[in-house]
C-alpha cells in the first residue's frame, strides 16, 4: 500500500475524479491570510471588516486541515471579541474623548504633573466609543486573519517549509512544542511525590520546592535529546569558506533592515509610498540570496516537501490581490475605507473594496479539499 492510498481518503470519490484531496502548501495559506490582514489594516470601515471576517471564516470552514490546530479558529474569534472589549474600555477610561455626544460621565481623576497630567475617567462620548469600536474591530480582524491561517495550515507545518538556513529555528520551536506537555507531566509527578511524602503542594514554599526538580528534569531531558540528535546525524555540515560565511551574514542582515523599512513605509499611510515597495522588494531579494547562501552549508534533505503548484499560486495571488487593491485604494485616497466618526455617520460601501475583498473567497474553491476523516478521527482520539 502506498502512502497515497492512505492520504487520499474516500472524500475524493464524491468529487470529480481529478480533484485529489491534499493539504495546500502552508506558505500559500499564510500569504493569503497576510493579504487579508494587510487589507484590514488599511481600514476602519466596520462593514468591510466584517466582510473580511466572513470571507476568512468561510474559507476556513471549507478547507481547514485535519490537524488539532484546525479547531483554533473559534479561539481566535473569541480573542478578537476580547480585543474589542479591551480597546473600548481603555478608550472610556484613559483616552481623551472625541466629539460632543456625552453618553455618561465617569468620576474623573487627573494624575499629577510628573505623570504628564494624564486624565482618567471623565465624560464618555458616543463618538469616541464608536471610534474605539472600529479600531478594536480592525485589530480583531487582523488577529482573526492570523487565526484563519493557523487553522488552515499549522505553524508547525509552516516551520517545516522554511528555508534550510532557518531550519534550526523551526526545529527549536517544534522541540519546545513537544517539551511543553512533558513539562506539565513532570510538574504533575513532582507534585504527586510531595503529596506522597505528606507535604503541602500549594503556597509559595510548595511551589518553589516543586520548581527545582522540574527544572532539573527538563535539563536532563534536553541533554538526552541533544545526545539523541547528535547520534542521528544532526549538525552534519558541508565545508564553507569564511568569505561565504560573511557574505551570508551581510546579506541576511541588510535584508532584514530593508524589509523593516519597506514594511513600515507600506503600512504607515503617512510615509512616502514610493519608498515602500522598492525597499521591500530589495529586502526580499537580498533575503532570498542570503538564505540560498546559508542553505548551502547544510547537507540536509527534506522528507515529503509540500509541493507548490497552481492551486498554491491561485490562493496566494488571491490574498495578494486583496491586499494590493486595498493598499492602492488607501494610497490614492478613495473615500469609504475610513468610517466617519465625528460627526457620526453610516459607513459607505465602496464597491471596489468589496470586490477586492471578495477575491479572497475564491480559495475556498481553488484549493484542493483537505484530506481527512481517517486522520482527523485518529488525532481526536
Amino acid at each position: 500500500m502506498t502512502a497515497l492510498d492512505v492520504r487520499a481518503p474516500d472524500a475524493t470519490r464524491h468529487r470529480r475524479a481529478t480533484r485529489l484531496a491534499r493539504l495546500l502548501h502552508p506558505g500559500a495559506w499564510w500569504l493569503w491570510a497576510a493579504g487579508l490582514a494587510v487589507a484590514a489594516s488599511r481600514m476602519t470601515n466596520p462593514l468591510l471588516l466584517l466582510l473580511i471576517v466572513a470571507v476568512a471564516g468561510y474559507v476556513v470552514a471549507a478547507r481547514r486541515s485535519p490537524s488539532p490546530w484546525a479547531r483554533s479558529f473559534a479561539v481566535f474569534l473569541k480573542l478578537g471579541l476580547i480585543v474589542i472589549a479591551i480597546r473600548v474600555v481603555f478608550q472610556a477610561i484613559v483616552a481623551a474623548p472625541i466629539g460632543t455626544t456625552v453618553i455618561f460621565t465617569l468620576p474623573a481623576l487627573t494624575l499629577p504633573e510628573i505623570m504628564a497630567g494624564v486624565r482618567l475617567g471623565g465624560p464618555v462620548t458616543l463618538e469616541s466609543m464608536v471610534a474605539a469600536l472600529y479600531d478594536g474591530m480592525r485589530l480583531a480582524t487582523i488577529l482573526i486573519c492570523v487565526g484563519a491561517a493557523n487553522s488552515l495550515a499549522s505553524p508547525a507545518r509552516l516551520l517545516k517549509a522554511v528555508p534550510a538556513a532557518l531550519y534550526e529555528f523551526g526545529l527549536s520551536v517544534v522541540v519546545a512544542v513537544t517539551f511543553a506537555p512533558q513539562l506539565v507531566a513532570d510538574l504533575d509527578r513532582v507534585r504527586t511525590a510531595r503529596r506522597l511524602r505528606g507535604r503541602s503542594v500549594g503556597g509559595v514554599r510548595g511551589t518553589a520546592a516543586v520548581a527545582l526538580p522540574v527544572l532539573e528534569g527538563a535539563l536532563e531531558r534536553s541533554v538526552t535529546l541533544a545526545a539523541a540528535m547528535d547520534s542521528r546525524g544532526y549538525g552534519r555540515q558541508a565545508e564553507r569558506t569564511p568569505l561565504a560565511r560573511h557574505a551570508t551574514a551581510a546579506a541576511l542582515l541588510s535584508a532584514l533592515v530593508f524589509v523593516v523599512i519597506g514594511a513600515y513605509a507600506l503600512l504607515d499611510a503617512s510615509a512616502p509610498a514610493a519608498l515602500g515597495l522598492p525597499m521591500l522588494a530589495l529586502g526580499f531579494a537580498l533575503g532570498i540570496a542570503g538564505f540560498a547562501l546559508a542553505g548551502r552549508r547544510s547537507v540536509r534533505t527534506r522528507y515529503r516537501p509540500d509541493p507548490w503548484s497552481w492551486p498554491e499560486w491561485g490562493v496566494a495571488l488571491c490574498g495578494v490581490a486583496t491586499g494590493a487593491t486595498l493598499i492602492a485604494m488607501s494610497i490614492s485616497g478613495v473615500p469609504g475605507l475610513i468610517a466617519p466618526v465625528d460627526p457620526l455617520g453610516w459607513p459607505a460601501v465602496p464597491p471596489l473594496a468589496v470586490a477586492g475583498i471578495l477575491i479572497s473567497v475564491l480559495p475556498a474553491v481553488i484549493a484542493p479539499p483537505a484530506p481527512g476523516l481517517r486522520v482527523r478521527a485518529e488525532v481526536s482520539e
Partner: protein
Amino acid sequence: MTPVIEFASVTITYPGAERPALAHVDLDIGEGELVLVVGQTGSGKTTLLRAINGLVPHFTGGTLAGSVRVAGRDTSTHRPRDLADVVGIVPQDPLSSFVTDTVEEELAYGMECLGVPASTMRRRVEETLDLLGLADVRDRALLSLSGGQRQRVAIGAVLTAHPRVLVLDEPTSALDPGAAEEVLAVLQRLVHDLGITVVLAEHRLERVLEYADRVIYVPGDARPLVVGTPAEVMQASPVAPPVVRLGRLAEWTPLPLSVRDARRQARDLRERLRQRPGRAHRTVSAEPVVTVERTRASYGPVPALRGVTLDIAKGEIVALMGRNGAGKSTLLSTLVGLRRPDAGTVRIDGVDPATLTGPRLIGRIGLVPQDSTDLLQRDSVAAECADADRDAGVEPGSTAALLARIAPEIPGDAHPRDLSEGQRLVLALAVVLVATPAVLLLDEPTRGLDYPTKERLSDLLRDLAASGHAIVVATHDVELAAETATRVVVLAEGEVVADGPTAEVVVGSPLFAPQVAKVLVGPDGGDVPLTVTEVRQALAVSG
C-alpha cells in the same frame, strides 16, 4: 567474519572518577551478530554501548585510551553525527529521544540530517513502516503511542538510515511481556533478514538470552569483560535468568538457555518434584485493610477503571499485572487518594484516602512511584532522611536507622542521584516506610534492577509482609511476582480479569507464567513450583 565493531585495548575514564569505568577492553563484533551485554547496575554496560558510536567520550567527557573502530571509522576522529549512517543507537527511554512529533516525521528525521535524496527517503519510510508493523499509526502523534509502539518507532527511526550496527539500551525494560515480545521479534527479523549487527543491554535476561549469539558479561569495577557464547558465559555469571539457575541447580548439560531447551531435560526433575509436599498456604488475616468497591475512574471520555472490586488483607503481597494502560497506575493513584474515583468507594483502614493529607495520609498508605527519584528531592541521603523524619513526625534519626538496617552500605553523604538504581529504590522505600504505613504500594519497582538487587527487594518485601504490612506491587516482571506475591490480580481494560493465589493465576497463562513454571509444568498442569528457590527447597526436603 570481518568485525564491524573493533575495540582495541580501550580504557574509559570519566572526569573526576578514581577508577576507569572500563579498562583494557579488547572486543571484536562481527557482521550480523546479535550480542547481549549483561551486568549489574552501574557496571559500565551503558558506557560500553555509548562508546560504540562515540557518545563516550565526545558527549559525556572523560578520556578514552585505545581505539574504537566501527565499520573502519575511528571514533576519536569521527563524532557521533559522522557515524550516524553506520551506527543507530536507541536510548533507554525512547520518548526522550524523539525530535519530531509524528511517527512518519520521526522515521524520516535521521535521513533528512544525512541528506538522503527525497525519493529514497520516501521508499525507506514505507519499507520501515511495514517492517516494524507501524503502518496503521503513521500519522499519529508520538505522545499518543503505547510503550511498545514507541520503542518500535525509536528502532525504526534509526533503522531508516540503514546503519550496519544497531545499539539498544534496555529496549524491553519498560514494556509488558506482550509488547516486549513484539520488539524482540522485530530485532530478530533485522538480524536474520537484513544482517544487521545488534548490540543490546538488558536486565531481563529471561526475555532475550535465547536470541543472543554471544554474551558479554561486564563485571564492573573495571575488571576484564567475559565474552563468549551464552552457554559459556552463563555457567558462572552472577546475573542469570531463572531457567539458567534451574539448569545449574539440576546440573543439566548443556546448560539450557531457553524454556524449550530446559523442558527437554526436565522430565527427571518433574518426576522428583511430583512427590513434594503441597505448597503451604500462608495464612493471612481475614480482615481487609484495603477495600475497593465498584470503583470507576476515567481520563476525560476514556475509562481507566470500570467497576473494580478488591479487598486486600494485612500480610498479603498482591502483584497487580496487566498490559500497559490496563489501569494499574490509575488504581494505585486512586488507592493513595491522588484521584477521586468517579464512582464507588475506596477505603484504607476504613478511611477515604482522598480526605487525608500529611502524616495522617502517609501513616496509612505509602507509594513508591515508578521513578523513585521523584520522591527524593534533597542533595544528600542524610538530608533526605532528616526530611522524612519531619514529614512523618517521628523521632529524628528514625529513617537513618531504618535505612542502616535494610541497606547499611548506603553512605549518608552521597547524593541520591549518584546512588545506583537499586540503592535509590531502597532509600525511597525507607523514606516511605518510616511513617509505618499499613499499606505499601510499589509501581514497577524492578525497572533497571539486576537479579541480585531484585532478590534483595523480594526478601525485604516478604519481611515487611510478615510484619503485617499489606503490599501491592504493580509490575510487568513475572519473575518478581512469582518470587514474592501471595496473590495476583490481572487487570485488562480497567477490569479485574483474574484474581487468585499466584500459582493458580500465573501457571496457566502463556504471558504471566514464570520460566520455572513453564519448564516444570506437566501435560496435566497441576501444582508446580514457580521459582528456583522453591525447587531448591523441595529437593532439599525430598533429599
